[in-house]
């Protein structure tokens, strides 16, 4: 039985439709990420799951209860906010105890719960301090502690790491993952950072303009994005999109697009994708890491196509080298290892991994 089920949820603010029919479900113990750009409706959806926003249409089920008009405190949930929302005039201990006090939990049970969670998160030495005396990371852990102490059936996270600096964000991300492995509660995690979504979630729901674009495991979302929005949103730097035509080369289907100086690149397609569609014009999607410098080992490997393109900009980052190449009129970003780094101005011989390439319908923007 699913721990959380969302059926045909719609939300209107006046005449503006913010959520346009959302269907999702989370099995017990799953970590679901709701990811999308600002304004896509993910925070609104989370607020509706929590009971902080009303539902215009549709149903939300937590466990076997429909909770549409159940108050937040009775939904057996806990929430971690972007701004942590710690009660500023209370100590950490009082912050964690507040919910239990409100529900009339006996004092000794409160103490036990706080002790358990404090040791889990290693915040025992902070219990007597006030939020104003804590660092960002510490406040983050206290906010999670307050949620854990409730022992709910559903955890809700609303962009909890957005207020932290980059390094701290990476550390806390790992901590959240470790925590989830230990505690194993069903979690709904809202973020605009697709790296967080990819690393933390067992399934990702990519949202855009109030609708779920794709709901699947991270690997599927990354390798077989259902449309160009998902393809472009997930992955950094994002997937390259090149307008191309399907042609026949040596009797086999291939995509072809113009390069500079009247030349044309023809890349044989790997799978039977082209046969499934009658389209001539397509959009070819190639991720930066699927470009590499041609080398003897590459040739002959199934699915590798070859071409050449001039290098415009080279950006070495130490661990890898990014480069901007020109495929005809389009600029394409490539990701190379430092040993095979491109040089400025060279006409680089490339090997393109066509087993990973995606084709999109230019009109519907969907994956073919």
């Amino acid at each position, binding site marked *: 039985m699913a721990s959380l089920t969302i059926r045909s949820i719609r939300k209107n603010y006046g005449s503006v439709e913010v959520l346009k029919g959302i269907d999702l479900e989370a099995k017990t113990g799953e970590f679901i990420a709701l990811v999308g750009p600002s304004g896509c409706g993910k925070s609104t959806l989370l607020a509706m799951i929590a009971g902080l926003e009303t539902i215009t249409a549709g149903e939300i089920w937590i466990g076997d209860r429909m909770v549409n008009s159940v108050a*937040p405190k009775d939904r057996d949930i806990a929430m971690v906010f972007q701004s942590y929302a710690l009660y500023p005039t209370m100590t950490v201990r009082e912050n964690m105890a507040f919910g239990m006090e409100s529900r009339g939990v006996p004092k000794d049970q409160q103490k036990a719960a706080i002790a358990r969670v404090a040791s889990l998160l290693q915040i025992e030495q902070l219990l007597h301090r006030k939020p104003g005396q804590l660092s960002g990371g510490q406040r983050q852990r206290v906010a999670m502690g307050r949620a854990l102490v409730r022992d709910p059936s559903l955890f809700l996270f609303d962009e909890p790491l957005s207020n932290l600096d980059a390094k701290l964000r990476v550390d806390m991300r790992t901590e959240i993952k470790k925590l989830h492995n230990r505690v194993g509660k069903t979690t709904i995690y809202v973020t605009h950072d697709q790296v967080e979504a990819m690393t933390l979630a067992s399934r990702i729901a990519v949202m855009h303009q109030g609708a779920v674009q794709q709901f699947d495991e991270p690997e599927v979302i990354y390798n077989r994005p259902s449309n160009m929005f998902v393809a472009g949103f997930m992955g950094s730097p994002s997937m390259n999109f090149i307008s191309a035509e399907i042609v026949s080369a040596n009797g086999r289907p291939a995509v072809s697009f113009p390069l500079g100086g009247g030349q044309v690149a023809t890349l044989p397609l790997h799978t039977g994708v082209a046969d499934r569609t009658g389209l001539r014009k397509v959009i070819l999607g190639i991720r930066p890491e699927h470009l590499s410098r041609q080398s003897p080992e590459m040739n002959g490997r199934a699915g590798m196509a070859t071409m050449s393109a001039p290098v415009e900009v080279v950006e070495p980052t130490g661990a890898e080298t990014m480069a901007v190449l020109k495929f005809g009129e389009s600029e394409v970003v490539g990701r190379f290892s430092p040993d095979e780094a491109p040089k400025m101005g060279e006409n680089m011989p490339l090997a393109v991994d066509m087993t990973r390439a995606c084709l999109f319908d230019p009109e519907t923007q969907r994956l073919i």
Partner: protein
Amino acid sequence: MERLKKWLPILVIAPSIVASFIYVFVFAGWTFYISLSDSTLLPSYNFRGFDNYASLWANRRWGVAYSNLFYFSAFYVTCAMAFGLLLAILIDQKIRAESFWRTVFLYPLAVSFIVTGTVWQWLYNPASGIQFMVNSLGWTDFKFALTTDRQNAIWAIIITGIWGSAGFSMALFLAGLRSVDQDIIKAAQIDGASWFRTYRKVILPTIAPIFLAVAVVLLQFAIKTFDLAVALTNSGPGISTTFPATYVYDFMFQRGEIGQGAAAAMMILAALAVVLIPYSLYLVWRRRREAGHG
């Protein structure tokens, strides 16, 4: 030329600095000196020590003024705050036509206490005001003649003072309530706190500094009470609603005793200092402590 440019800002502000300096320090010093002199109708500069203060405190009327001030301040500050807080909480409940309610409760602030006092004086008049209206509605035994009652006239001033200032305290509290991080309230909702508990344990403690600020401002108004007392009762009946400020006016400009009037003025200044200096120090201390925590 460069030198002039560098000095220009200081030159520009210099006249204001001088004027303020004179206004604050020289004037106060002058009045203080007068209070130590033997001036009666006109300033004279013979030093008399603290004689004026002695006769001030021996004066029965000053005793009435001072005790009225304490009485008034206690009720005025606490009730205006309580009432203002109540109004602010009501308006904070996501109600409609909020600006209408705010406009209604705040308009006394736009109007001088002279006007307020005058109008309420009419309302307190038993022959034509509130008592008259209630009587004519049938409750002929109803008595509400505060301003003619020596013992209770002070209540008229207190009530009208609260009426006039509750809107002010409401506006400040409302701003404070609005400044509370909404996420904290959502967290309390999820934590299961009732409406009452959320206010008592989460929202109000968070705006605790505002309570202090409002109290200090209201206390300051109370100490300076003049317009209201003049317009509502003119310190009467008799001298029963004398206030320190009306005492000053009386002695300085009606009785030709500016020495004693100046002494009374200094006492008002002293009362203000007693309220404001600790508060300012507290603010500085708190700011320093907050800066330390980063």
